[in-house]
């Protein structure tokens, strides 16, 4: 293992669409759960208990195994004041840490800027998937965005090695920074320069990789495998990100079957990733955050659940102090906020914990203030 991988790495898995917290960590002993979920409920008999009150949805069995090994922090009742129930706005808030105005800078983009202020490594942050999530976007901060790790490169179709070398030289000159460009063109030229640099390095990762771990064929598992490949290649990457595609956790209808399948894929992917880290003796260096933009309405709508607040997040890794953090929000009608679970800890506290205690950064300017940190690290 190259020395630069000794630095801590944060992997973020975004569960887009608003994961139903109540059917993920289930308050199976609470009569109010059964009352509010006449149709869209997890059978209490099937829940994998954490204690006498709450337990895992059985689809999370592989994560339960990590929990039993003390590697999982469950952040209960996570959210922010005045919850917004629009996917886009709420996800923006999680991405930018700006609940009161529309922000343009992503929290991880800022973290990458602080880790590598002089852009020494264009691969400090890498996203897996198409299009950069706002969490990683800060103008002028290079973040590679990799759709397909195997074929990543610029002008790969130019015939002849000399011709390609010459074309790449020209490309590099055409995209070189120049005065007097508009902001958009400045952004595009920087993107071109970064793409060229990043591609040459990233291409080496899959060839260097060897592992006995089998990942599933779904997008999340495949990108987690790519994350492992890039990490093991020792490229100095500190922040990696991927997203469960298609806003799939938006389970307004037919929730039970779909939610189960999604969590089976995610849990198996996370489990394979952790095994891969073990096999490469790298478990201590990597921490995984799973988050979603909001929880869902307490009362079901007969087949699914509508947008709510008060969600749940997970932090997973060997270095995590496993346990329950935050409080499980009450389902009592007097304690709800417009029919939704009340948040009791601000997501920016979890971010701040990861930024300061894991990545060694000053969290305050990144998350925009001081928030109570949690002791999962």
């Amino acid at each position, binding site marked *: 293992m190259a020395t630069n991988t000794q630095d801590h790495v944060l992997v973020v898995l975004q569960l*887009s669409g608003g994961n139903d917290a109540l059917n993920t960590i289930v308050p199976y002993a609470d009569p109010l759960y059964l009352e509010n979920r006449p149709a869209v409920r997890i059978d209490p008999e099937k829940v994998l208990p954490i204690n006498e009150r709450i337990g895992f949805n059985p689809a999370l069995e592989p994560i339960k195994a990590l929990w039993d090994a003390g590697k999982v922090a469950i952040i209960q009742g996570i959210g922010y004041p005045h919850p917004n*129930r*629009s*996917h*886009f*706005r709420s996800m*923006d808030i999680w991405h930018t840490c700006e609940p009161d*105005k*529309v922000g343009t800078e992503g929290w991880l983009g800022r973290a990458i800027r602080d880790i590598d202020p002089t852009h020494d490594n*264009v691969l400090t942050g890498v*996203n897996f998937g*198409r*299009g*950069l999530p706002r969490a990683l976007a800060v103008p002028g901060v*290079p*973040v*590679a*965005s*990799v*759709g*397909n790790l195997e074929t*990543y*490169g*610029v*002008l*790969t*179709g*130019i*015939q002849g090695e000399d*011709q390609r070398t*010459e*074309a790449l030289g*020209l*490309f590099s*000159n*055409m*995209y070189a920074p*120049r005065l007097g460009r508009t902001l*958009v*063109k400045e*952004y*595009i*030229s920087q*993107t*071109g320069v*970064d*793409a060229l640099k*990043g591609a040459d390095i990233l291409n080496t990762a899959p060839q260097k990789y060897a592992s006995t771990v089998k990942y599933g064929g779904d997008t999340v598992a495949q990108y987690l495998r790519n994350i492992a490949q890039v990490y093991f290649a020792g490229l100095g990457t500190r922040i990696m990100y991927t997203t469960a*595609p*298609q*806003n*799939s956790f938006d389970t*307004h*209808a037919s929730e039970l079957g779909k939610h189960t399948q999604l969590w089976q894929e995610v849990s198996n992917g996370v489990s394979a990733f952790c095994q891969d880290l073990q096999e490469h003796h790298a478990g201590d260096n990597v921490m995984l955050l799973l988050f979603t933009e909001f929880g869902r309405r307490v009362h079901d*709508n*007969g*087949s*699914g659940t*509508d*947008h709510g607040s008060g969600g749940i997040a997970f932090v997973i890794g060997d270095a995590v102090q496993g346990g329950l953090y935050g409080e499980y929000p009450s389902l009592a009608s007097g304690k709800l906020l417009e029919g939704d679970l009340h948040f009791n800890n601000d997501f920016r506290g979890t971010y701040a914990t990861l930024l300061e205690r894991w990545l060694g950064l000053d969290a305050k300017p990144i998350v925009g203030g001081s928030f109570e940190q949690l002791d999962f690290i």
Partner: protein
Amino acid sequence: MAANDIALMAHLMRRAGFGAPYQELEARAAKGYEATVEELLHPEAQSDGIDADVLERYFMEWREMLAGGPNYWAWRMLNSHRPLEEKIALFWHGVLCTGSSKVQHAKQQLIEFDMFRRCGLGSFRDILLEISRDPSMIFYLDNCMSHKGAINENYGRELLELFSMGVGMDGQPNYSEDDVKACARAFTGWTLTTPVPRYPYGVYTARFIYNPDDHDDGEKTFLGETGNWDGEDIINIIAKQPATARFISRHLYNFFVADDVQVPAWQNTPPRDPEAIKMLEDEYFRSNYEIRAMLRVLFNADFFKNARFAKVKSPVETVVGTMRLVGDFTTPKPGVPALVAEMRYMGQDLANPPTVEGWHTGQEWIDSGTLVERINFTADQMGNINLPGVRAVIERLAAEGPTLTPERLVDGCLELLGHYELADDTYSMLVTHAQKGGALRTDADDFAPRVGQMLQLIASTQEYLFA
């Protein structure tokens, strides 16, 4: 023909369609700009040239494709003689979004996309009514799960937030949470027939049905107006709001004229060109909400004509535009799904936008991943000197005389691609590169490859990312 007329026509065709080869630009410029605008605005006046019957009869493997889905749509965009019909359908698909990841029924979505073709240039009020009765949409945003006494707010909210008014304008909110609930109540009972089971009968589509027993007929207050509103009343109220005129005008501007900020920022960020938006808003009300009338104003306005290369091309525009230019896929052959996959790699999964907000546009199309996909695809196509459109460029340049200067090679390629304009430094780099190979003899064996390589290099410039 004045070069500027052709350059302007190239601009119009990139925006109102997917670009056009040079000979088509010349023919259209000869007809005149305003006449071409009118022709584009009336797609119904001519055949689309898509001979689906022939495809179905003689190309058995295409039958599945003809049932709908992004492959069929891509085929239409590549070959339709009514470019604006496809472009306006693409516009509405990006605003009134449904996604195949949830609908999972290509034939059902095809009905929606055909509705965009049929109604997309008509009254916005009618379009809202059509989409509210569209089975894909009713399923996508769960209106079929919204019941009297147990509303599902999903459609009611997105109708206001993303389909018609937007959350706010000039710093003020456009509606309240109570308006969302009233709106959702008004659309209870707007639901679907249960489709015939998929097996063993084949794929059947669902139809819209109004179920009065499940409709909440109670009194509702919506945007300050109180009555026993039904969904159609709600749409009538929405259509007359100034916020709706603003929202649709900004969408048309952002899609057809120049990149503006993303939709969530519209509440607090004024339009890029307030005067242009005002012209479009006025036409919205004057024409009784007609999109065709708004586009007539738009295409004929100076703010449009002066907005050349003010937009980053979308992936669909990039792929379809490139293929129309190189003249491939004009007759049936395998490979259309691969083109659709290219759009997806560049960040646009046709028929399946990432969220109900649609695709973010402008510079957000470009990141270090999608840039690589885009440049590699266009360079590969334009460097393929066997493709008819590339051959046409080569032959046209060869016809200019026995030799070509390096400068003329660069200029000629830029012109024939649709009068692209390069920054001075980019231009001189390409000329310097061309000079290394010396003057070009148009009858030499290396003439065609040198033109092909120049086209590849132009395709990889920053300027070529724009339309």
